[in-house]
């Protein structure tokens, strides 16, 4: 069954969605959507450098995304420019730099659209292994830093004062983001990775009463979006990444409808 490209794409997409759920929740809670976008855009520079230096794509993308996130943390501390200006500069300049380098390398044929929007045909067995091994590592690491990162999300001072090392957790979180971007690039594409992180988590918010519920629900909704998106992509011959994002959007819009018989948990007087 793994020889079938569609089955591979489904399994790969589900794996990506499972780890995107909890990571996406933190992106929403910490208001880092644009940050995630910037890291994702830098992935194209990673692709270009990987091709140039003839290293594995996943290694190239991870290295560049991780470097960008650490550079950002450093620049934020300098406080010269506001964070959103820094992000704006880095997001688009790394994307542009990637496009320029790729176009200069006349000797390699690059399927640019495949990287930007995802290409289910390109998912190999090696990619599957990368997604599931990488995904297991990402989720395990997130479980380890969960308490610290959540406390820091509620309040950085509490986390620091009570000895939970929030800076360390934040750094690990950045590396996890870089990992998910590197291993999910082929499925959803560079330009759309953040939406797979954010939209299922945003959809889950309404139905969750605790951070943990929201994380699990985001994973489940992400898997459903991948399933619907890939089936749609196959039937309508549309690119896989955008189809998955459209499916996630449909789920999000459905979640905005009034739920019968459910109220926000009220305060007992």
């Amino acid at each position: 069954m793994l020889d079938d490209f569609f089955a591979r794409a489904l399994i790969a997409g589900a794996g990506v969605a499972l780890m995107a759920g909890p990571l996406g929740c933190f992106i929403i809670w910490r208001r880092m959507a644009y940050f995630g976008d910037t890291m994702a855009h830098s992935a194209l520079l990673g692709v270009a450098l990987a091709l140039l230096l003839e290293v594995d794509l996943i290694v190239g993308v991870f290295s560049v995304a991780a470097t960008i996130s650490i550079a950002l943390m450093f620049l934020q501390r300098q406080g010269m420019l506001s964070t959103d200006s820094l992000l704006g500069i880095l997001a688009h300049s790394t994307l542009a730099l990637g496009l320029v380098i790729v176009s200069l390398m006349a000797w390699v044929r690059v399927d640019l659209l495949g990287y930007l929007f995802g290409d289910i045909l390109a998912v190999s067995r090696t990619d599957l292994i990368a997604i599931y091994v990488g995904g297991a590592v990402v989720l395990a690491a997130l479980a380890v830093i969960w308490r610290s990162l959540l406390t820091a999300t509620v309040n950085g001072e509490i986390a620091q004062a009570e000895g939970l090392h929030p800076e360390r957790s934040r750094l690990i979180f950045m590396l996890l983001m870089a990992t998910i971007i590197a291993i999910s690039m082929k499925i959803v594409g560079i330009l759309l990775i953040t939406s797979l992180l954010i939209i299922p988590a945003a959809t889950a918010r309404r139905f969750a009463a605790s951070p943990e519920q929201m994380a699990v629900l985001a994973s489940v909704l992400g898997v459903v979006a991948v399933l619907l998106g890939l089936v749609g992509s196959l039937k309508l011959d549309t690119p896989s990444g955008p189809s998955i994002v459209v499916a996630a959007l449909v789920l999000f819009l459905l979640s905005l409808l009034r739920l019968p018989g459910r109220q926000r948990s009220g305060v007992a007087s």
Partner: protein
Amino acid sequence: MAPPDSAPALIRAHGIGVRRGDRWLVRQVDVAVRRGEIVTLIGPNGSGKSTTAKALVGIVQPDEGRVERAASLRLGYVPQRIQIDPTLPMTVRRLMRLTGPYPEHEIDIVLEQVGIAHLKTAPVHGLSGGEFQRALLARALIRKPDLMVLDEPVQGVDFAGEIALYELIGDIRDRLDCGVLLISHDLHIVMAATDTVVCLNGHVCCHGPPSSVAESPEYRALFGSDAAHALAVYRHHHDHAHLPDGRVVSLAPGQAEDRGAG
């Protein structure tokens, strides 16, 4: 009562200073908190109260001086005015477990102590200012800290709630026998709810028991002549107590005096 000066400090700052660029926010600050002692940092806005407290607990690294901590000091921190992002689902019960898997009955106990047991399953986003402060206090309390640090704990709390909250802090100190470091810019109540007052204005202006600080010329220069009445104002209002639900109960005169004297 405050412990004797000879008791070992839970945390002690030796001449700490914090700089932002070329400007010193605070310099040469010595503060110590002992077990069972309530120390209050007071001072006008921008006097470096928060900065000093943050340097003490390790949120800010001091640029000069050093901070000494008792070995394996457990700290409970109640921050000033925080907002939890509305996208983060969080009930009061879950907030109690933020830094550790505390059992249900301990959650019930601390919520009972701060008077919000009825809000256990409520989302934190719907709490009033006073309720949220109490929830944050309970969250720090459940850790059974050796040292509680509270940055402006009564902000957004009305006058009656303010007295109740300071009484609660005194009760907690008695029950846990922990040290308490309070930061406050409001004088009227905090002065009398304290064992030691450290008056800051970029440096330590004066320190000591509230009665002697209130009479010191440095303190009066900083806060004006009204400030001298701070203790009197507190005592005047202190013949009754406010329960969390808003009811008022009378205190026997002796009881009020005891608490007022800390």
